[in-house]
């Protein structure tokens, strides 16, 4: 008789991390081996659903290509295709090297350290990574392409208008959602799985859904109507619609504009608000009393939105009047010229949006009456990833503002701008508040010590990305700029960054043209990289690679906090959950947070780190970390949880239950009229930013070619370099789109995902309209080169689809790995980013967002 086989089955509740959404998961183990991952139906984050990446995640855990031991580079040469000649070393040796390197720069100039993360694992990086950065005293962080491509504009504009990171339609009540380069509810983006369900239910309910995009992607495939548009021209279409709404149809929510925006603020001939001499507050015109008053004067009987007035001899107009005049240039004919959207379609879109807004209507929810505006204009990466990033987003947002559909039932909702907290403790709690000129400040942000508005004053650059001179930029192009050193010299950066601690970012692939990035990376003295796989960044440039624990081996106390980043919006439930190790880290893998904790201890940074964590996690009273004693990461996580939810809901409780869930209140979701705040249609503050930044630039004598016309208070269509390209040979607009099966370049090594990708005609190929191809004598499946005007080119096969604008070429995701260390990913797909220029001419001069459309020529490669 053989031994009896014991079968032990176990389920562990945790959170995914194959992108930033951190969906709730349940993981099945058989005899200690992970065999299956499912969605956790108890969690509002994912609602029991997983995307393909989430299901395939267990293949990461056991992939034989994982990094399992610390590796030190023995080849001093660095470069895109250089063999690093890795040598395995022990953790002890690795830690000694790291501490020595960091001690040196901490003592000489802490600014020399760069903390580099990735949006993929943002919720881990934002915890310990950012706390370590602050404790160390460096202002430098970089998020790879995920950050630079995706969010400088949308997050800024959503922060200003919705006190939130991003936007969704109110799927419960919305009747018409128009998406401008967004995919909310189709498998990509924030809260992907939860809102996929919400969007599907909304469509069944009858919500009409229109997608404006050069590409008929997953969103377009589910839409009632797809409106192909030239990439980067969204502002022209949106401003054309605003023009029709207010100048032709007379459709606008006057009450909302008067009470919730700066539409009535008077603007003088200097294009600044007319301000009260004594208080400095903006003035409005009261048409009943026929005189100007400060905007919050309690005697105001009405607000003029239109007309010309004279105040103390100064002629002035309300913002709304100026807006009316400003948008009148965007006639349907002109919009068609810029966007290729037929003028009839422009009129139809505007008319339908205006009609369906049902201005003046109300709805009762939970016994309380709210304004009901069941239309939403949603924007994200597609519209914001351009030189005109900020204006594209503001222009689309104006549609919501004009009809009053911001954060009311049926409208465009920030998620989650208000939180009343877990009922038993009242924590976490935040809501927007009133700031300067009556404008809204966010209640919380991704880092609690910062608000996106008011935008901080520009300062002489201390950050390597110049973000302090351009303070609405959270990510900067300077990292990958070919003239990086000249930029630093011109802006008199006092030091040069010399050490990077990287956490999972493959910045060589994710940013843009890799050649200048490679040259820039060669200048660093030492690069430490926490990775689960070796990749083009680590192999080419890292000096020391640390075997990171993957999300199934790691503890994170707050994967969905703060919930403006990745918690579903709208009505429903709140969930707070943890990510916990499903298995102990295999081999010599160690978790990033634990390693940083140990490094801080060995550098003598305990007090600085603990105090920073106290602020970051808002730890109070007995839950504060006491620098007199040493804590483990588990103990810290325990305090973070008990601080929010009480002594009975610490780490042990969360390990067992995984997720704490409670009901959202309608007033948390539909807060706009409850909270006394306004938002700006007219970004007067851009003038202050411009004047201060320009003065610094002039004082420094920097010759940077900054187009200050992007700092005008009202948005305009401003062309990207691709729109201005005159050489007719480069006749197609190249852009990339998010392939929902992949998270940037990170997941292409996963066999299941690869299998579905190679079987999809488009994922690893180039999309072209058949008519366009035929005119060029190209056939479906041809191998072609596509080349930008600077001579960079990539090779791939074309596949025909009518789901692409005839003047465009579409590329999926961030593909085209060339590194041997990811054998499944290697050679698959197209490395589109190689075609992107990373320089002043290709960034938005307000927020430094990279322009992601590029003019291309195409020719056969065989």
């Amino acid at each position: 008789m053989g031994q009896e086989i014991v079968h032990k089955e176990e389920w562990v509740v945790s959170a995914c991390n194959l992108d930033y959404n951190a969906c709730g998961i349940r993981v099945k183990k058989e005899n200690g081996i992970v065999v299956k991952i499912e969605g956790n139906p108890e969690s509002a984050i994912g609602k029991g659903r997983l995307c393909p990446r989430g299901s395939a995640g267990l293949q990461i855990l056991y992939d034989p290509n994982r990094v399992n031991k610390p590796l030190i580079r023995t080849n001093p040469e660095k470069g895109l295709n250089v063999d690093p000649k890795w040598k395995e070393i022990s953790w002890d040796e690795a830690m000694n090297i790291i501490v020595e390197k960091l001690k040196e720069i901490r003592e000489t100039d802490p600014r020399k350290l760069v903390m580099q993360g990735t949006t993929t694992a943002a919720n881990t990086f934002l915890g310990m990574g950012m706390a370590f950065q602050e404790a160390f005293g460096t202002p430098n962080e970089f998020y790879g392409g995920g950050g630079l491509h995706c969010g400088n504009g949308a997050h800024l504009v959503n922060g200003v208008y919705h006190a939130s990171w991003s936007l969704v339609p109110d799927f419960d009540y919305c009747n018409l959602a128009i998406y401008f380069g967004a995919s909310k509810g189709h498998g990509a983006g924030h809260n992907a799985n939860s809102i996929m369900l919400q969007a599907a239910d909304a469509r069944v309910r009858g919500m009409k859904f229109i997608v404006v995009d050069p590409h008929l992607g997953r969103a377009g495939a589910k839409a009632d109507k797809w409106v192909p548009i030239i990439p980067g021209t969204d502002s022209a279409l949106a401003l054309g619609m605003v023009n029709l709404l207010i100048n032709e149809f007379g459709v606008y929510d006057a009450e909302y504009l008067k009470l919730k925006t700066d539409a009535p603020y008077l603007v003088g001939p200097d294009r600044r608000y007319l301000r009260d001499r004594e208080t400095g507050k903006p003035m409005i015109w009261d048409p009943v009393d026929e005189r100007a008053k400060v905007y919050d004067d309690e005697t105001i009987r009405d607000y003029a939105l239109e007309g010309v007035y004279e105040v103390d001899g100064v002629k002035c107009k309300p913002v709304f009047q100026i807006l009316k005049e400003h948008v009148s240039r965007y006639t349907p004919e002109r919009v068609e010229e810029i966007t290729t959207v037929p003028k009839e379609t422009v009129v139809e879109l505007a008319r339908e949006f205006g009609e369906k807004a049902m201005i003046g209507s109300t709805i009762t929810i939970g016994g309380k009456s709210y304004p009901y505006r069941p239309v939403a204009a949603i924007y994200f990466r597609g519209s914001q990833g351009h030189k005109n990033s900020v204006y594209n987003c503001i222009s689309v947002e104006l549609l919501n503002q004009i009809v009053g559909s911001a954060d009311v039932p049926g409208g465009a909702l920030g998620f989650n701008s208000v939180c009343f907290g877990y009922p038993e403790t009242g924590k976490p709690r935040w809501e927007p508040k009133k700031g300067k000129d009556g404008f809204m400040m966010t209640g919380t942000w991704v880092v609690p010590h910062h608000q996106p508005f008011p935008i901080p004053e520009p300062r002489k650059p201390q950050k390597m990305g110049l973000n302090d001179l351009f303070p609405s930029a959270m990510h900067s192009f300077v990292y990958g700029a070919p003239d990086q050193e000249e930029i630093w010299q011109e802006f008199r950066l006092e030091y040069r960054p010399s050490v990077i601690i990287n956490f999972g970012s493959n910045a060589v692939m994710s940013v843009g043209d890799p050649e200048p990035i490679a040259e820039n990376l060669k200048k660093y003295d030492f690069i430490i990289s926490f990775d689960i796989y070796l990749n083009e960044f680590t192999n080419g440039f890292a000096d020391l690679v640390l075997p990171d624990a993957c999300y199934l081996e790691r503890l994170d106390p707050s994967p969905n906090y703060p919930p403006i980043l990745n918690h579903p919006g709208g009505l429903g439930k709140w969930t707070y959950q943890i990510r916990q190790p499903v298995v102990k880290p295999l081999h010599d893998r160690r978790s990033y947070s634990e390693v940083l904790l140990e490094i801080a201890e060995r550098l003598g940074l305990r007090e600085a780190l603990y105090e920073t964590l106290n602020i970051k996690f808002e730890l109070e009273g007995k839950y504060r970390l006491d620098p007199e004693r040493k804590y483990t990461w588990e103990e810290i996580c325990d305090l973070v949880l008990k601080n929010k939810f009480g002594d009975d809901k610490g780490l042990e409780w969360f390990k067992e239950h995984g997720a704490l869930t409670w009901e959202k209140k309608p007033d948390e979701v539909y807060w706009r009229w409850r909270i006394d705040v306004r938002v700006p249609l007219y970004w007067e503050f851009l003038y202050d930013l411009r004047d201060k930044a320009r003065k610094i630039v002039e004082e420094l004598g920097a010759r940077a070619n900054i187009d200050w016309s992007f700092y005008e208070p009202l948005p305009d269509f401003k062309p990207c370099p691709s729109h201005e390209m005159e050489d007719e040979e480069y006749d197609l607009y190249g852009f990339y789109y998010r392939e929902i099966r992949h998270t940037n370049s990170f997941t292409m090594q996963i066999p299941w995902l690869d299998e579905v990708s190679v079987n999809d005609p488009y994922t690893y190929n180039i999309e072209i309209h058949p008519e366009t191809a035929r005119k060029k004598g190209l056939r479906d499946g041809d191998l072609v080169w596509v080349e930008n005007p600077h001579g960079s080119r990539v090779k791939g096969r074309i596949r025909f689809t009518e789901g692409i604008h005839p003047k465009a070429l579409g590329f999926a995701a961030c593909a085209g790995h060339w590194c041997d260390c990811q054998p499944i990913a290697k050679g698959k797909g197209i490395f589109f980013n190689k075609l992107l220029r990373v320089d002043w001419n290709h960034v938005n001069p307000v927020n430094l967002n990279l322009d992601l459309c590029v003019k291309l020529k195409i020719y056969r490669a065989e």
Partner: protein
Amino acid sequence: MTETARVVVKFFGFIMDVVKKPEIEVEIKEECSVMEFVHRLADMFGDRFRERVLTDCGEIRDHVRISIGKEMVDKEDYEKRLIKPGMNGEAFKLFVFSSQMGG
């Protein structure tokens, strides 16, 4: 109160390159507000400190946090909250955060 006393000041975050040491002692003769005390530190450390910590109008910048001992001082209390000699042994802690993350 006339007697001179010392306040321990600890610095954290993106200010170490300016102040060089993590901790100093500052003599004060009289009670002063948190705001006045920060201005005093700015006078001691000069323009680079001032730029990092104060706005052009002399307000404490939004990304600065201050605690007295274990207690965070609310932004609204910068003018009201008093720094007293000795402060019962509690340190004045000034945190300068750098990461702005959008907007």
